[in-house]
Structures are given as C-alpha cells and as structure tokens.
C-alpha cells in the first residue's frame, strides 16, 4: 500500500514544526535588533555581536564551558563505550541489574537531585569545587547517554564480521580495534557530540558544583536572564544555535557518506 499523507497529517506536521522552530527563529531575528528593548524592533544592527565579543566575563565563561564540555565528553565517550560493550557483550555478569539501573537512572533523574548529591559527595571527600568538580559531574551524567547511543548500534551489529576476524587468527583486542571500532565509530561520534552539547547546556548540575573561577556560560546567562532580557544574550544564543546547527548538519553528512561508502564497498 502506498501511504498517503492526509490533510490532517500535513497540518499537524506543519503546526508541530512551526511550534518547534518559531521561538528559535524569533530569537535569531531579534538578535539583529537595533533597539535595546528586546521586543521592540528598532531596525537591523549587528551592534550586539560587537558588544558580546567585548564582554570579557561572557567570553571567559564561554571558554570555561568549552573546556569542561570537551574534557567531560571525551572521558564520557570512553566510559560510555565500555559500558555499552559490557551491556551487550558480557551476558549476565554479577550485578548487571544494578549496573543497568545506574546507567538509565541518571538520564531521567531530576537534575536538582544529581547536582545536590554530587556536591555533597565532593564536600564529603573534601574536593575543592570548581572546574574539576563540574567536569566529573558532567562526565557521570553524559556517559549514560553515550552508553545508550552506542548500545543501540551494538545491538544491530553483525557479529559474524568479528567472528571471521577471530577465525583468521586476530586476537580479541586487535579484532576490536580493526573490526568493531570502525563499524561502531559513527555511533561513538554521535555519543560524543550528544555528551558535548549536554555539557555545554547544563545549568542545574553546574550551579551546584561550581566554585570560584568556574562560571560557565549557562550560569552566566541564567543570572543575566533573571535580571531581565538583554539583546546581548540573544546574540550569544544565535552564535550557539549557529554552531550547533552547523555541527549537526556536518555530522549527518559525515554519517551519510560513511553509509554510502560502506554500501559501495559491499558491492
């Protein structure tokens, strides 16, 4: 049967996507507003972008955020990939139930609980709050997301390729690095990107675990938003949106190309 989109289907898709994208679009448009009043249009201007780059505190926060996100996403990718391998390749090992519980719980756990509990832990072990505590906290949260992304890929993975390599005499580690890893690489990259954006974005957990000299961009934005809207924040948001969009599009193109290439090789 050929599926036909009914008028109802088309209307709900159009309205749904309008709802998702209109607020973001308005934010981007108003970042080029000449007026200081955020909701009154005062002509086209790029002055807020200039103001943004001259805002030392905001730039510094962006740099801290970027470093935390890169570091925590890298560690989380390694840990998450290991956890995904453990869940798919190790059968019923001791404590598996607890392990799956610990992998799925942080993803839905309200952030206030995760943030508070990690902070109390860091206080208990007498670790100074700051850059490192946020990094550790973000690693813990985001590794669970990496696990799920990589696990989903490993589930659909054709084990016979690994078996073939082993039959031909490749030791397990070598098989992993030359067969398994290249095949699951796109999902690992996707997991890394997810971990990276989650870390960039996090306000609640970072607020609990921050310390002197470790103000992240979301913390900074949040404190400014509480004081009122500012066109500078619109400009900062637009840059972030642009970066993320570019990142997602290039990731999609990359994975498409790798799919095409592997299809070509298969023929």
């Amino acid at each position: 049967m050929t599926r036909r989109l009914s008028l109802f289907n088309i209307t709900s898709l159009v309205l749904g996507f309008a709802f998702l994208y209109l607020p973001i679009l308005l934010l981007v448009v108003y970042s080029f507003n000449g007026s200081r009043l955020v909701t009154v249009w005062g002509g086209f201007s790029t002055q807020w972008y200039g103001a943004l780059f001259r805002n030392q505190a905001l730039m510094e926060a962006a740099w801290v955020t970027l470093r935390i996100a890169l570091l925590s996403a890298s560690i989380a990718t390694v840990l998450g990939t290991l956890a995904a391998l453990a869940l798919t390749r190790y059968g019923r090992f001791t404590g598996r139930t607890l392990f799956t519980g610990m992998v799925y719980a942080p993803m839905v756990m309200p952030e206030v609980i995760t943030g508070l509990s990690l902070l109390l832990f860091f206080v208990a072990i007498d670790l100074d709050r700051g850059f490192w505590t946020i990094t550790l906290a973000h690693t813990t949260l985001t590794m669970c997301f990496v696990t799920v992304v990589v696990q989903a890929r490993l589930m659909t993975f054709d084990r016979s390729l690994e078996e073939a390599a082993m039959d031909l005499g490749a030791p397990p580690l070598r098989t992993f690095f030359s067969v398994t890893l290249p095949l699951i690489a796109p999902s690992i990259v996707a997991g890394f990107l997810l971990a990276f954006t989650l870390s960039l974005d996090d306000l609640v957990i970072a607020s609990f675990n921050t310390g002197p000299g470790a103000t992240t961009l979301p913390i900074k934005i949040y404190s400014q938003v509480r004081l009122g809207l500012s066109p500078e924040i619109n400009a900062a948001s637009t840059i972030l949106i642009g970066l993320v969009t570019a990142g997602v599009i290039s990731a999609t193109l990359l994975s498409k190309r790798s799919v095409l290439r592997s299809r070509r090789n298969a023929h």
Partner: protein
Amino acid sequence: MKERSFTKRLTAGLVPAVPYLWLGVFFLVPFLIVLKISLSDPAVAQPPYRPVFEWSDIAGFIGALDVENFELLTQDDLYFRATLSSVRIAGISTLLLLLVGFPIAYGMARAPERHRSLLVALIILPFWTSFLIRIYAWIAILKPEGLLTQALTGLGVISEPIEILNTEWAVYIGIVYAYLPFMVLPLYATLEKMDDTLLEAALDLGSTPWRSFWTITVPLAMPGIIAGSLLCFIPAVGEFVIPDLLGGSETLMIGRQLWSEFFSNRDWPLASAVAILLLIVLVLPIVIYRDVEARRLETRP
C-alpha cells in the same frame, strides 16, 4: 602462555569494571551521602551540617542522626503542596505532550520513506540547541508587552495584553516545548513499525476511522506511549529551570523548593531531605522506565 591469558582476562574484566566503578563512586555513593545528610542537623560551620563522619567515633556519629528534617517536611504543608503541585503540573504537561506529540509522530510515520530521516533530524535539532536558550526565547514571546501580545493585537484578536508569563500556563508551554522531542521520538519509533494492513482490514470490515484508531493504533503504539510519557513525566516533576524562569513566584514545584532550601536558606540537610522526598515520589516511575527501556533495547532485532 599462562601469563598472556591472565592479561587477556584482566583487559576483558576491565571493560565492565571501569564504568561500573565510575557510576558506583559518582552516582551511588553520592546518594548514600544525601541520605546521611538528610538525617543530620544544619550547623553554622564548614561543611554546614552536623555530625561529620569520623572513623574514631562511629557510634557517636550514628547516634547524632535523626529524622527531624522529615518531621519538618510532614509538619509544614508547604512541601506536601509542592509535591502535589509538581506531580499535577508534570501530569498535565505529559497529557498535553501526548496530545501535541501524537499527531506529529503519526504524520512523520506516514510520510514517504525518503523524507522520514529528515523529519526525525528536524525533531532532534532543537534538542541540540541550548535548553536554557529555548526557554529564554519564550520569555520574550509571553511577556505582557511581548511578541504574542503584539501579534494578537495586530490581528485584532485582543485589545488588552494577555498575562501568560508568570502563570502556570507558561510552565505548561515551556515543558511541552522543551520535552516535545522526548515524546515524539518513542511514539514515532513504534508508529513507524505499525502494519497498515491492520487498519485497512478494520476499515474493510466496517469500522469507523475513529474506532480503529482507538482499537488498533493506540494499543499498538502503547510501548511508545509509555516510554514517551515516562521520559517526560519523570524529569518534569523535578524541573527547576522552567518554573523558575516562566512560572513566577506563585508556581510551587518541588525542584524549585530544593533549590531555594539549598541556595537561599543554605539548609543543606533540609535540601537533602527534599531530594529524598522527590526520589520517593519518582522511584516507581523510574523503575518502570528502566524496565521498559532495557526490554526495548534488548529485544531490538
């Protein structure tokens, strides 16, 4: 030879051990500490609670723990109201998410196959842009003199500015907006696999479209409905950012209460007790969610 098999076993054992240990140290142990501190008393000290654990005086440490904070939670009905209101707001939001998300997921599942991956990417893309920024965008829209009022006045629908910001409605809009991908994606995943011939058969046998929707589509989409609803409901109960930025001071939610106990009142033991309370409310949904997810991933072809 023997040595080699030992290193092999060691590396093989490290695969589950490393993430296991990490989560044990940074996820499980912190919870036990929250539990312990919820049984402590606040103190003007560093850290701001008593007793502090010491190996030399374990008996004294245990003796100093009490359930005073939990008694306070039951005596002051603020926490009870906050819990109830959080569950209510999250529940209504989840229903709204189903109402908004289902038609979208259904439309996506019926779209021609070559467009589907683009539609999925378009649903995910807003999720990659900052949560905070997406909530922030709504402030400018919902403000009394904001863009929604301007648009509706321009169209002649209203003459007075509408008050949405700082009401519960703004919280609903915020949650539905921010969580929509979490609802649409699980729904889409089940709807996409649905066999159309079942619907055709029902129609051929004289069923109305409305009836076949309820007797065929909805039961078949149930795994997606459950997963999507839990994925939205659980974090929504403990939501802080949305009620704080959009909800105004009247909106009572438990995540916000925890935040203010911690940051404004600096009462760490009470904040920990609130965290335990929130966890008790959520423990059942979280366990169900874990089972649903684990089964979904493990039965995948």
